């Protein structure tokens, strides 16, 4: 069990540091609240209505697709770096990987998932 002490230490330190920072700002920071300051801050725009409302499913669809191809890009970087070492076999494997994702993209496209309206 000895080898896990470092992890435990990391957890404890992480919690301690965040708690300490919150406490410091609480005690040291000046407090002059007014109405504008107490309102919700959102990129400078006025908040309208509740945040807990239903979003169109299209947002989720785009988000999922983004996630998918984002991950694809993440895989492509190390492969590009090691291209010579991996050789032809690596090329084929990556080709299959891309092929599968491209089939998915075609599906999303044909089914109209990329059209906003």
């Amino acid at each position, binding site marked *: 069990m000895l080898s896990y002490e470092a992890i435990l230490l990391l957890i404890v330190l992480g919690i301690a540091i965040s708690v300490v920072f919150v406490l410091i700002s609480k005690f040291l920071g000046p407090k002059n609240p007014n109405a504008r300051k107490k309102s919700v801050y959102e990129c400078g725009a006025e908040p309208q209505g509740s945040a807990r409302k239903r979003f169109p499913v299209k947002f989720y669809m785009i988000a999922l697709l983004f996630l998918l191809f984002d991950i694809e890009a993440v895989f492509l970087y190390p492969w590009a770096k090691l291209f010579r070492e*991996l050789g032809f076999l690596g090329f084929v494997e990556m080709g299959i990987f891309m092929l599968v994702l491209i089939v998915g993209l075609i*599906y999303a496209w*044909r089914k109209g998932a990329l059209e906003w309206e």
Partner: protein
Amino acid sequence: MTVTINDVVVILPFLVASGGALLIILLDSFSAPRTPRRFLGGFTIFFLAVAALSAYIVPLRTESAFHGMVMMDGLARFLSVVVMLSAGFATLLAMDRLPEQGSARGEFYALLLFSAAGASLLASAADLVMVFLGLETLSIPAYAMAAALRRDVRSTEAGFKYFVLGAFATGFFLMGTALVYSSVGSTALGRLAAASASGWTEKPLLCMGAVMLLVGLAFKAAVVPFHMWAPDVYDGSPTPATAYFATGIKAAAFAALLRVVILSLPGMRAEEINGNEIGWHYIFWGLAAATMAVSSLTALVQKDVKRILAYSSVAHVGYLLIGLLAGKPGGAAVLFYLLVYTFMTVGAFAVVAYLENSKGGTKLSDYAGIAKRHPYAAAAMAVFLFSLAGIPPTGGFFAKFYLFKAAVQGGLINLTVLGVLFSVVSAYYYLRIVVAMYMEQGENQAVIDISPSAAVVTAICLCLLFTIIIGLYPTPYLSVAQASASMLP
């Protein structure tokens, strides 16, 4: 890093099934939206057949391929074929029933193929990571299949429940893998066997990890108390999907249980320590007893045929768990049982699919007097139910016979007595359906109006044929199962 042709051959069933799924996605994408998607079912059956055949034509390779990740032994081969059979029947049901119930889309077939591919990978996995990969490839399409009827509240509910609880159980499995790795230093199943052979009682992390692996797999197999999702999901999903969940996924889950628990952690079978007897033997004993008891008793008070069949499928898990404990003859009996169980359960669900329509029609009261209006369907249903109850001369009788025989040989007398006792209880709820069909007067005659469905009828006939043939002449099927289970301890 090299990959040889031999490596590729081992995962041929997986490659064929997933390649087929990709092709079906493309076909579905480029077909006109109004074209019926029935023809995709034909493609699906073709790919499933090729996948099953490829499992049988490749030579057995018990040494693992891809650097110890997968292998093709008798177990993998047999269960791959069972899964492909189950998926093929589900396709037949889907071709007729899904358009009828308002889902005319083609994804269902691709999902089915992906799931079958995952099951095949799971059956041939030789490493915990591959087990996990197979498990996920198997499950994620299944969640979507459960929710295939998007406008049906119960179907979406089923999909959601299956997904959330499935993810929960997967978490257990993954955590178990991590703990086992931390204790043994490897995820290869072969290394696990060596590490668990001696001194496992000294390794609490291994124990905890093993239990978590068990929970993850027991969820997929619907073992009590990890079964709670099963009745709701089986009931709410479209019947073709239910037929696949109850047979194909169950077969895959038992493949994983055999691989991970029985084959890879044989050392943990039973040990006496500090006067306490612990080990798989006792855990499975309790799980089997609980599974048989809870499912059989709860099935008694159900009022929906699909739900009765759902509880029945959980009850059969209980019998199968007995087989897992009974060594090599038990393993052969489990494989044989899974084969017969696939035919009779798919057959029963196929009759349900045949008789239901968009307005439902799976209530026990809907089945009252059905024998008069649909004598052939009722007769087929009666055969499947008799087989499920284990009444000769059906295949179900021999399946139970060999299972209990193996259990008695393995010294599991008490458990066998329990098993026989609960089979008697199960006969009650199976016969309740038969009684409703043949001896009761129908109240709402109009509920069940049936549109012609050639594919469903084909599925019913094939299942009927095999249920009866195996009952009359079980020897060849049994000997295949025995050969496939030869690597079991």
